[in-house]
């Protein structure tokens, strides 16, 4: 097979059996790789209603179809499982170069099943896989784990690992690779911890074959040239993803004080320029990425002076900063380093802390509940202390480790109103009241409240349309326009393909579907056209939705926190706005071909997408 290695590794952690399986070409053609193939296996092999932290859940790592080829910004891998945070389909995605090294080791992916009695790690070295004892690694964080494994195995091994947050089953624990890169969302680090799988070390020299090298090189060269003189690329290289902080703030959509307002008065203290001045060492990139939006940083003043690492990114700055009403960039950077080392998703972690701060402000949590801590907005010391406690599940950290949804259920007293999550997944830092269509994307994203499923923040907050779909303009972000719900649907489908091939979503702003289809065709040797690109994205997206439907998800869950639906923004350009989701949901379902009452993909839609086997699973035998 071209592009893909054509093989996956199945690792049963209960009986320690390891086997190799070929990926049928038909499956590859229908689902491409990465998120697509992983979701196919998850749907087929994981029954509904299982405990995400139990032996029946499967943890599936899968590199993108293009990962390891020199195609620019396309070295990513996906991890898929049922989430312990949301209890539905979960996917998390990461860059760096671990996904590339996995492929060079001889496999496109790994399916972990069962639970090991004792801590273990997996080593794959040029096609040979082995489970090893990880007793000495258990209790260590990501940097140390990676260091120990590299010392044992050699520097050429690349490591994906969990920190102690994953071991302690923090519901939003991340899987970290290349030390600083996170498959952060949905708590898949906790799934890894539940299986007592500490790490996966990969190394290899196996060749990734390309069917039509000449065409591939021509298109890649064109893409590199485009990225070489591109203001978005330059912006991302210059400021990292924090480039967008000012832009979101001037739209009145930077969630501040746990979304009590969308205007942050101290944005200039934490924006991209400020980050460059205060902590930036240099820009770093993922495998074959000329953009280099990563930040190598060092704290140069205050109590954390001398601490080094990578990041923070926009979400982390916005959430540990504006959302927690904290203007201390050094503390934000330190919180980021800690999250990376413990293996925590910075979005969920920071959001949960911001939620806790509002609970404290409203008297729902008191010092007697917090071990004497004053968890007030702006208290940067409390933020740092809470990150430690969450990862260790110490004191009040044990409650925060469950995430915002569970916290609100336990605390009650009206806190559900400002628990800022969708389906249990904490929302990213874009206030949808300032760009209405983004609320629809949060409400319907398959993994819960998420921004990169259908990055409609691009054409709204950033005013930057995506070339990868035919029409992505949003005329007025403050108006709900039913016709524009198609943009969400089209972006979700297109960006699903990006996750399947391992591409960075920023490429969607610079490349069109024709160009990406040509690359896929050149790599695989398949006849692959724009129509295939669109259909495959829609197929994968519907399969994931079907997984959720099978778990009991209905239209009722496609909603937003009450704060967004009922509390108008109090100031700024979007003052007075709330999300009127009702206007957008029906037309979106219509574009999707989903039943408006139940939210299920219709049998007709599933047949159209070649997902006949799914119909019985979500409708029962009579609909066959």
């Amino acid at each position, binding site marked *: 097979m071209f592009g893909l290695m054509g093989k996956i590794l199945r690792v049963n952690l209960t009986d320690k059996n390891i086997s190799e399986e070929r990926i049928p070409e038909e499956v590859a053609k229908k689902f491409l790789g990465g998120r697509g193939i992983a979701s196919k296996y998850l749907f087929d092999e994981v029954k509904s209603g299982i405990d995400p932290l139990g032996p029946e859940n499967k943890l599936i790592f899968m590199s993108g179809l293009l990962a390891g080829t020199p195609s620019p910004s396309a070295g990513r891998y996906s991890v898929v499982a049922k989430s312990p945070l949301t209890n539905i389909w979960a996917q998390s995605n990461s860059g760096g170069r671990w996904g590339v090294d996995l492929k060079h080791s001889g496999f496109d992916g790994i399916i972990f099943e069962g639970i090991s009695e004792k801590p273990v790690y997996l080593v794959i070295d040029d096609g040979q896989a082995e489970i090893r004892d990880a007793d000495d690694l258990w209790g260590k964080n990501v940097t140390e784990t990676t260091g120990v494994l590299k010392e044992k195995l050699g520097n050429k091994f690349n490591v994906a690992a969990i920190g102690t947050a994953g071991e302690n089953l923090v519901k939003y624990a991340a899987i970290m690779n290349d030390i600083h890169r996170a498959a952060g969302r949905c708590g898949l680090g906790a799934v890894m911890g539940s299986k007592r799988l500490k790490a996966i070390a990969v190394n290899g020299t196996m060749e990734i074959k390309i069917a039509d090298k000449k065409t591939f090189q021509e298109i890649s060269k064109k893409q590199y040239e*485009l990225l070489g003189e*591109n*203001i978005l690329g*330059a912006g991302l*290289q*210059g400021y990292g993803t924090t480039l967008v902080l000012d*832009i979101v703030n*001037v739209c009145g959509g930077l969630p501040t004080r746990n979304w009590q307002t969308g205007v942050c008065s101290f944005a200039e203290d934490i924006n991209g320029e400020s980050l460059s001045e205060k902590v930036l060492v240099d820009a770093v990139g993922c495998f074959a990425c000329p953009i280099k939006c990563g930040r190598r940083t060092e704290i140069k003043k205050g109590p954390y002076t001398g601490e080094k690492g990578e990041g923070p990114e926009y979400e982390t700055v916005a959430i540990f900063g504006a959302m927690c009403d904290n203007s201390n960039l050094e503390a934000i950077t330190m919180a980021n380093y800690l999250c990376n080392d413990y293996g925590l998703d910075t979005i969920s972690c920071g959001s949960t802390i911001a939620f806790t701060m509002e609970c404290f402000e409203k008297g729902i949590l008191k010092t007697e509940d917090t071990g004497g801590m004053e968890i007030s907005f702006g208290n940067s010391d409390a933020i740092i202390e809470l990150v430690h406690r969450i990862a260790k599940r110490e004191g009040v950290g044990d409650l925060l480790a469950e995430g915002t949804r569970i916290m609100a259920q336990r605390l009650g007293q009206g806190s559900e109103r400002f628990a800022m999550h969708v389906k249990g997944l904490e929302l990213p830092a874009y206030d949808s009241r300032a760009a209405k269509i983004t609320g629809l994307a949060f409400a319907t994203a398959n993994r819960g409240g998420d921004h990169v499923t259908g990055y409609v923040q691009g054409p709204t907050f950033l*005013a*930057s349309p995506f070339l990868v779909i035919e029409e992505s303009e949003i005329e007025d972000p403050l108006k709900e326009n039913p016709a524009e719900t198609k943009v969400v649907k089209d972006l979700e489908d297109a960006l699903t393909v990006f996750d399947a091939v391992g591409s960075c979503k920023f490429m969607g702003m610079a490349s069109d579907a024709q160009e990406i289809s040509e690359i896929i065709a050149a790599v695989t040797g398949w006849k692959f056209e724009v129509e295939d690109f669109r259909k495959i994205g829609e197929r994968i997206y519907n399969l994931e939705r079907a997984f959720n439907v099978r778990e009991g998800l209905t239209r009722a869950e496609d909603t937003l926190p009450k704060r967004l639906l009922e509390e108008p923004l109090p100031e700024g350009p979007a003052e007075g706005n709330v999300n009127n989701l009702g206007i957008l949901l029906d037309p979106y379902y219509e574009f999707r071909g989903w039943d408006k009452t139940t939210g299920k993909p219709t049998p007709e839609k599933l047949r159209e997408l070649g997902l006949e086997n799914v119909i019985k699973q979500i409708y029962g035998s009579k609909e066959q």
Partner: protein
Amino acid sequence: MYKAGTKEWEDYYDKLVAQRKKSESIPYIVLTPEWVSEFEKKIQGDDRYKQVAKTWEGSVTLVFKADPEAGLDKDLFVLMDLWHGECRSVKIVPSEIGRNGDYVLEAEYGRWKRVLKKELNVVKELATNKLKLVPFNFKNAAKLAAAAQAALRLVDLSGQVSNKFPDDLESKEFDSFKALLKKLNTDFGI
């Protein structure tokens, strides 16, 4: 000819604008000194622009490439002096002044027209190098990327001034537009 960059040049340019504002009817023709002056006023009076551009520093030159069908026998340079949400001035200037702008954005006349008419998205055009930063350098490109909302607002404001473009004019008006450009060239080196 008045020497560009001198007080004399400025005074006579302002005088020309004042005269033409009296003699020309509204909406003004895009790329005339009176249109540019109204554009300047719009920016100066716009609170939204002040807000979205409050971190912006530096002059921006818009270069309209020569297009005889639009009456432009040579490139035309519109220089906007912008600083922290304030608009200090907007003027048509000679090339040697325009090229010294902090950010020089260049495109075919027809493309600028479509951008100003909002048929094309200015950020997308910048992102795809259709509106070209000349010379390209990463630092300036990064700053432009961060100013997306300011760029959009400027386009909005331009549209509020006028959408009457030179290549859409009747022949009499077109001739007088060409005569104006000739005078600008003779008197102001534009």
